[in-house]
């Protein structure tokens, strides 16, 4: 069964109202749960305005849980933008189809050049990103994965939603993980931001992680775009989504990202308030809700924030990100998807982590683990 029936059980506005009605006593109950025992009810409390005064206490629990599970380590990764061509009109995105910008799809040579630049920076984990357009689909992505696979330990992607067969085929070329952001779980507001293109189909997007799970992908990344609707409710629905996926596709790992709306080309979306304190609360709520989920900190945030927030329970962060196709070496000045705030290079971020008592982790995977599925000749029949 997909996530759709579970999602339909809940009304977004009612969830938002329930969260608003949570009390200090509810928050205390949630904070005193044994590790791993927080429920969706507790998540409501932890995300509520009533929990805001408990932020320090939440942060201490979150920090402790993260260190116990992941150690004092931080996984570093970089996005590699392959294309900014997009047939969707999304009012919050710099790649939106109506924006009059120079469009670019990286060629084979350009992909290799960008890959080499990332290797030189030390990256082993790379996230491939594209806009959403038909011809930058399965075949283009399979080719990009093949070109890059031998150079990196881990390749993930954040691209248009695909069908189960497409994901299964891409896994054969070495795909480790897929990030698919729901943007918002609010059915009333979703159509206001998605005016044209396949992204208008909210149900198809909501079921994308199910299709990934059915394909047997090793990791799925979730996340709302904070600021599009009531953030507390969007965060709670993300938790609901996580629980559904964990129980159904139990072999898969999960991560959650916390993108906030950033200034970008062409758009002035009126956003709901989601400040740094809110981001910290959402993060800690998720860590208390799930000890195991990986939590990712973006370069959309400022250096000052990242330097301190990294201890709150995050497990991975991007560094030195370029959000334009060719941004690392081919065409550093092409148009970016959003403006990054932390512009430090990866080595500077790694030094900052060491100073904070964290080990920067460049490699925490091996291509063997992905290519095993296709390497039938060396893999003996066992069992």
């Amino acid at each position, binding site marked *: 069964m997909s996530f759709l029936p579970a999602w339909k059980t809940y009304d977004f506005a009612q969830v938002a109202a329930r969260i608003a009605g949570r009390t200090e006593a509810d928050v205390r109950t949630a904070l005193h749960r044994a590790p791993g025992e927080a429920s969706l009810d507790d998540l409501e409390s932890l995300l509520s305005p009533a929990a805001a005064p408990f932020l320090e206490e939440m942060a201490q629990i979150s920090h402790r849980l993260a260190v116990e599970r992941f150690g*004092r380590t931080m996984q570093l990764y970089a996005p590699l933008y392959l294309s900014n061509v997009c047939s969707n009109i999304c009012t919050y995105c710099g790649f939106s189809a109506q924006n009059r910008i120079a469009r670019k799809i990286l060629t084979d040579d350009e992909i290799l050049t960008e890959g080499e630049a990332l290797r030189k920076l030390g990256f082993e984990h790379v996230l491939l990103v594209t806009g959403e357009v038909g011809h930058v689909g399965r075949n283009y992505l399979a080719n990009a994965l093949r070109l890059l696979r031998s150079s990196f330990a881990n390749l993930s992607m954040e691209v248009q939603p695909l069908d189960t067969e497409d994901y299964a085929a891409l896994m054969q070329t070495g795909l480790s993980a897929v990030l698919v952001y729901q943007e918002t779980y609010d059915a009333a507001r979703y159509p206001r931001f998605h005016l044209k293109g396949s992204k208008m189909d909210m149900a198809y997007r909501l079921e994308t992680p199910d299709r990934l799970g059915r394909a047997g992908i090793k990791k799925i990344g979730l996340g709302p775009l904070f600021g599009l609707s009531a953030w507390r409710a969007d965060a709670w629905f993300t938790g609901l989504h996580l629980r559904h996926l964990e129980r159904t596709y139990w072999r898969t790992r999960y991560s959650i990202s916390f993108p906030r709306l950033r200034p970008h080309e062409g758009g002035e979306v009126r956003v709901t308030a989601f400040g740094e304190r809110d981001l910290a609360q959402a993060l800690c709520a998720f860590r208390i809700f799930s000890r195991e989920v990986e939590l990712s900190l973006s370069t959309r945030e400022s250096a000052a924030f990242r330097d301190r927030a990294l201890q709150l329970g995050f497990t991975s962060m991007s560094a030195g990100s370029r959000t334009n196709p060719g941004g690392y070496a081919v065409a550093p000045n092409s148009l970016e998807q959003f403006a990054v705030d932390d512009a430090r290079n990866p080595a500077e971020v790694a030094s900052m982590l060491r100073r904070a008592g964290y*080990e920067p982790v460049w490699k925490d995977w091996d291509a*063997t683990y992905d290519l095993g599925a296709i390497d039938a000749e060396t893999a003996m029949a066992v069992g």
Partner: protein
Amino acid sequence: MNSQPLIIAGVEFASRLFVGTGKFSSGKVMRASLAASGTQLVTVALRRVHTDGVPDDILGHLERDRYRLLPNTSGVRDAREAVLAAELAREALETNWLKLEIHPDPKYLMPDPVETLAATRELVKRGFVVLPYVHADPVLCKQLEEAGAAAVMPLGAPIGSGRGLESRVFLEIIVAQARVPVVVDAGLGSPSQAAAALELGADAVLINTAIATAENPVLMASAFRLGVEAGRAAYEARGPRSSGATCAQATSPLTAFLDNSTV
């Protein structure tokens, strides 16, 4: 130092404390912690090291002449992936020792007994010294032993949980019937729990989280060293087991009179 050395696959270990190299805040802290633990065998996750010979954050800080490396296959989900990872580890780290770790479940990291047994059979055929990480399942441990495992590594509690010897009653059976060394792996959160494992007859313990994530990892490593030594000393001091819920009685006080009966 304890009197009887531990021998696995013909290699002698004076220390019965094995230590994992993940989760440390830096290579320097890891190096100092390993030294303080007195360990001679350290596990290294294949996924964390560079397999192309380039020095990395873990191998770059390990004194290779001081520690025997035990690569682990953390991250693989079935026997076939485990075999591929093992071959890569053997080539990259130049050792045929392997901690076989197959947990398809990334949330609780529970080992898969079916795939682990299948992989052990294959890896032994390929000449690996296999130390499989498993549930505290006495029958599975015997099957692994028959498949050629050099030791068995049953869990005390879920990885990283620090809950101690939750599986004690099954560990006692495993220890009682094992013909290969038993290394309690996973879930030990304190030196007293490590001591208890050795006291009940485990041959060694493997610790990672409890040392690496302590406020002072070096001091905690040294505390585990003492705990393990104390537990082993207590085990040796006590002599052969004379009682216990899971052991047969060594003598038969009620029926001994029949031993010499001739009619």
